[in-house]
């Protein structure tokens, strides 16, 4: 609401002494309310239009799974002319001789291991950084922050050589082991932030009563930072579920593929034939993430808001 407008609507006859106060306090009531309502309506309309635009690709994806192959390229509109479930039937057969559920299973195993490894190792490291005073703390903490900004691509070649020499290519080890070693600094950082906020009196008292760090960590700090642990777990799951580069580098046989790599197979052949199956498999791969999002959206969005954690 701009000042000049308010000034013109207020009575010009008011005494000069109170003019300043009156311009703010007493514009005609009804007009102000009406204007407020109109502003809110415009606000809503703009936001709904924006939401429709932003979510259109997802809606398009969901509805396109019902289009028969012949309609792709012919019917760019949203609604299928002849809706069918054929795509789903086809897609469950899988690709490259591997059924779809196996790709799902692989993705699930990787994601669950990623969650367990990330939460455990990051919580341990965060406790040391946040609650223990030790020699070298400063420099190691700075190093950890430094790795926050480090592009992953810088280490893919040497890491690949390492895992290749260990004979671990085409196993889940190269994808899972880093998760158990807290290599994703974001999670460590997020937990450090949370653990630092916890009052110190409690663990000081516990120490005086003879509890060691292990007990303080397990019985006091971990329960206190549970919300942060949940945020970490959800992000670790989704990042692992969506990860493409890791499995692309390390997994070579189709029966080990998680969904993103399986989708690549669909994508590669889609230019020639089966676009419906590609779209449907893509949609199914997104469903768990979208469900996670719907259930935990408060955790996710608030986690992002308070900690600056990016999707």
């Amino acid at each position, binding site marked *: 609401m701009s000042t000049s407008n308010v000034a013109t609507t207020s009575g010009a006859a008011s005494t000069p002494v109170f003019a300043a106060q009156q311009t703010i306090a007493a514009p005609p009531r009804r007009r102000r309310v009406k204007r407020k309502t109109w502003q809110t309506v415009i606000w809503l309309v703009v936001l709904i239009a924006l939401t429709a635009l932003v979510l259109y*690709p997802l809606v398009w994806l969901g509805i396109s799974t019902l289009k028969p192959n012949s309609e792709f390229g012919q019917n760019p509109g949203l609604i299928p002319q002849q809706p069918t479930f054929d795509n789903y039937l086809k897609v469950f057969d899988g690709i490259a001789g591997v059924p779809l559920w196996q790709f799902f299973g692989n993705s699930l195993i990787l994601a669950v291991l990623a969650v367990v490894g990330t939460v455990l190792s990051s919580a341990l490291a965060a406790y040391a950084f946040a609650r223990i005073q*030790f020699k070298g703390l400063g420099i190691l903490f700075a190093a950890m922050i430094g790795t926050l*900004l*480090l592009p992953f691509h810088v280490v893919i070649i040497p890491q690949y050589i390492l895992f290749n020499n260990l004979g671990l290519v085409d196993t889940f080890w190269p994808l899972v082991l880093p998760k158990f*070693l807290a290599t994703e600094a974001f999670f460590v950082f997020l937990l450090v932030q949370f653990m630092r906020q916890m009052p110190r009196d409690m663990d000081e008292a516990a120490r005086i009563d003879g509890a060691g*760090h292990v007990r303080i960590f397990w019985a006091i700090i971990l329960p206190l930072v549970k919300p942060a642990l949940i945020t970490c777990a959800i992000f670790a799951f989704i990042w692992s579920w969506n990860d493409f580069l890791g499995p692309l580098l390390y997994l070579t046989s189709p029966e080990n593929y998680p969904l993103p790599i399986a989708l690549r197979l669909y994508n590669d052949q889609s230019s020639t034939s089966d676009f419906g199956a590609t779209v449907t498999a*893509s949609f199914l791969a997104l469903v768990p993430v979208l469900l996670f999002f719907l259930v935990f959206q408060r955790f996710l969005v608030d986690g992002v808001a308070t900690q*600056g954690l*990016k*999707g």
Partner: protein
Amino acid sequence: MLRHPDPAPSPRHLEQPVSTTATRVIVTGEKRRRALANKRRPENLSRPTQRSRARKETLAGYGFLVPWLLGFFGLTIIPMGYSLYLSFTRYNIFTPPRWIGLDNYIRLFTNDPQFIQSAQITLIYVFVGTPITLIAALLVAMLLNYRDKGAGFFRSAFYAPSLIGGSVSVAIVWRAMFGSEGPVDSSLAALGIDLGGWIGNPSLVLPAMIILSIWQFGATMVIFLAGLKQVPKELYEAAEMDGAGAWHRFRAVTLPMLSPVIFFNLLLGLIGAFQVFASAYIISNGSGGPAGMTNFVTIYLYKRGFTDGQMGYAAAIAWILLIVVAIIAFILFRTQRSWVHYAGDNR
């Protein structure tokens, strides 16, 4: 000698109830009082005791850090050093690396038009996409900040794309939507703008990639919104009293108060944009095409290292990427003094 601000522990502090499960150990009042007193006045401890305590703490610290240290040195620092070494060699994983000095770097900058193009399109993608994303995120955040009621729904709806934007599924959707005869092409054609498919068009595929990165503005927007909520309302009221218009209020209040958040989002946004991989790979079917216009540095690195088996050359590309990211971070941190305003800081 350091003077402790509170030499005698206050009785209130001693009587503070301790109710956590871990502390249900019976301790005599005397022992506890003495322990607390010691805690408050470390200078009272005899030197050896203090030193052994410090040693114990250090031991505990490194104990908790074992997994992280293994990861940090084993999977990050030593590999980085090794890849620096590899970048001065010719190496194909099957025969031992052969030292060739600076040849890889010289070849990259003087004799590899593919790399030059790759660097150019990456820089365009990063420095066009990130600022637009930030501006869009800030505008939408301000729009949402206008009203609390109902804003939560839109906040979540706009956030969803940033959770999935880098996934293969979304890249496949983008390929379909921006492909020829796709929804974007046909809606534009209906408006009389006949561009054809974006994905197969060398001059439109990069804009399609940038639109994909802008589409993921939600996470940035949520951080901006949290920042906006913390701007004291009095500042706006004061500015309004002074007769500041909307634009002036934005310049004089919103921007400076948000500058730490802008700095954070800019830093992470730029660094994140350099790492785009899956979407470019899927949209171009792993080729980096059409005409090399999605051949981002990460894609080129992957192709050289893992398709052509030129590990040394790829390591050199990785190090150039690292150096560029480090330079950008350095510039941002150096210039933040002149434009980032931290609350309670009167520099």
